[in-house]
């Protein structure tokens, strides 16, 4: 079957399923929802939170009407659809990470093409849209612009922003200024969500004190910690471009840390550990594999064969729960008191990130879902050809081939 035919058939099958969905009665849909565990209340509140991000808070849909086509005994309370402080924090972090991600993506794209021809034409537009989006999120959020910018108006801020971004003298500093702006806005948003009062009558000194107080909160520190490591958020699968950036981050961190020994977690961990150890030109004698035997992880040979060691790094491809790395960290190497042990994973879930935060050398990707996957078959192997790095080789599924020249350029960007 040709590709066009396969696609056409899939589309027709999808259309038929949706047609049936449209014919299905409300009673049946509700019964299916109960059967599938779809919680309508959380569906609606999740929708409200997402829409406030997408359309801006001014357009945040209020709670949907109580009367459904089918009346249910579960009436929604008036406060159920309000944006909670937790959701606000999530919105703030998503907005910032999105901005960060967009900047990084474009940065890499710039390096692939003629920098001069594009920077002038695209850069300011992109920056302006991103900055305005971010401003809208906060400025429209509450009573008005005065809340965050005493004595100003939205239009004035936007107009100044536009002038600044297009001004040839100011534009070289825009990136730096935006970083500060983003940081301040996020700090204020996190503070407001944490219950700090932001009053326009406050003096500059009082406002500075509030900023300092917000920065002392646990939420802010946790947020800052994530930002400092600049992880990217992925949904449930790591796409090739994220994977390449993350591998380059891992390599840069390893090159800087200069471990004496690398321990690959048997299976998926071996693919990237082999790649990374080859990249930093690690001696094969210093490369170990930890495999699971009778519930514990054991090394393929005696660690003493590596000689004296001070720094050891355990590498896995995915940390879904963090248990594997924690087990190796605590049990396999629990007795090594004189050795500094760090962990590395290409991608980890939020829970793994929080439970292993202190042990990670660097944290390039955080997945929303613990069932995250990498863009290659992790039962395969790693190989380097003359022109490509090949991940997930020797399996039926197509491996991920990363052109060496491309990877090296990304690595240079990150390591510099």
């Amino acid at each position, binding site marked *: *079957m040709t*590709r066009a035919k*396969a*696609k056409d*058939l*899939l*589309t*027709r*099958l*999808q*259309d*038929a*399923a*949706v047609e*049936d*969905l*449209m014919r*299905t009665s409300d009673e049946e*849909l*509700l019964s*299916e929802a109960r059967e599938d565990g*779809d919680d*309508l*209340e959380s*569906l*609606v509140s999740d*929708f409200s939170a997402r*829409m406030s991000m*997408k*359309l801006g808070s001014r357009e945040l*849909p*209020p709670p*949907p009407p109580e009367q*459904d*086509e*089918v009346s*249910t005994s579960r009436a929604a309370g008036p406060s159920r659809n309000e944006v909670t402080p937790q959701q606000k924090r999530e919105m703030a972090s998503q907005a910032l990470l999105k901005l960060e991600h967009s900047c990084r*993506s474009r940065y890499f*794209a710039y390096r*692939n*093409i*003629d920098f001069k021809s*594009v920077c002038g*034409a*695209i850069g300011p*537009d*992109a920056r302006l*849209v991103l900055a305005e*989006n971010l401003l809208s999120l906060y400025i429209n959020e509450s009573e008005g612009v005065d809340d965050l910018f005493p004595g100003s108006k939205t239009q004035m801020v936007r107009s100044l922003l536009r002038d600044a971004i297009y001004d040839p003298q100011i534009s070289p500093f825009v990136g730096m200024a935006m970083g500060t702006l983003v940081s301040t806005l996020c700090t204020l948003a996190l503070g407001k969500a944490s219950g700090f009062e932001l009053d326009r009558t406050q003096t500059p000194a009082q406002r500075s004190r509030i900023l300092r107080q917000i920065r002392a909160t646990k939420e802010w520190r946790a947020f800052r910690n994530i930002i400092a490591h600049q992880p990217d958020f992925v*949904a*449930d*699968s790591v796409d*090739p471009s994220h994977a390449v950036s993350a591998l380059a981050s891992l390599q840069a961190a390893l090159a800087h840390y200069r471990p004496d020994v690398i321990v690959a977690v048997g299976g998926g961990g071996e693919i990237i550990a082999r790649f990374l150890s080859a990249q930093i030109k690690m001696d094969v004698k210093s490369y170990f594999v930890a495999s699971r035997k009778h519930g514990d992880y054991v090394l393929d040979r005696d660690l003493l064969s590596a000689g004296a060691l001070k720094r050891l790094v355990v590498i896995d491809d995915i940390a879904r729960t963090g248990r594997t790395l924690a087990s190796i960290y605590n049990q396999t190497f629990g007795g090594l008191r004189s050795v500094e042990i760090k962990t590395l994973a290409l991608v980890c879930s939020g829970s793994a990130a929080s439970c292993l935060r202190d042990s990670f050398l660097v944290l390039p990707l955080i997945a929303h*879902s613990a*069932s995250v996957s990498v863009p290659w078959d992790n039962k395969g192997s790693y190989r380097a050809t003359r022109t490509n790095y090949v991940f997930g080789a020797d399996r039926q*599924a*197509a491996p991920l*081939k990363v*052109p060496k020249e*491309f990877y090296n350029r990304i690595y240079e960007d990150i390591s510099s």
Partner: protein
Amino acid sequence: MQDGGGVSAVPSDYATADEVLSAVRNISRINHLTLIKAARIYAHGSIYADPRELRDDAISTAYLSASGNGGRRWPRGVDFISFLIMTMRGLASDSRRSAVRKSTVSNRVQAKDGAERDLLDGLEHATPSMESVELGAEESQHRFLEEEAALREVEQLCAADPEIDWVVRGIREGKPAHEIQEKSGMSKLKYDNAQKRWRRKSEKFFLGRRKS
């Protein structure tokens, strides 16, 4: 509402941005469920790893187009939910054609000449690097394999349930329901039930493939 700068003598047949927002506010719980179920079905094989993103983009498209930013507009008189479902279908289908990158409405801006474009378009089309071409080709091949695998799973599903097989055969051959029902010897109720089973399986099946 006037079309992008032009003057219209008659009232527009399309909803305004406020009307779109009002319709979004008035989406009932049951319609939320319908939307997410449709999104689960259409998200398969598209760049949307999360069906909620597809639904959100459809709503943003409706809102932005009503605000005069170009794109598919909501005609007055058309049911809003049906319109959103068709928009999701279009967005998912577009994304399959350009599988390499996701162009969400949030990246779209209005250029000075009034034309809508993606912020990253200039970057992508200026000088496509060898690397991005190679990665794109691999991604395209990967998607094809995924589509083939999906169809194989449909076949397995059909093999396990002969009644679903008739339904799928009907869709595949473009035959009307009554003709397939007659040919298969199923009663209307039986045929409807088989169709329902097919839809229920496909919701989970399409979703399951993306989440794997």
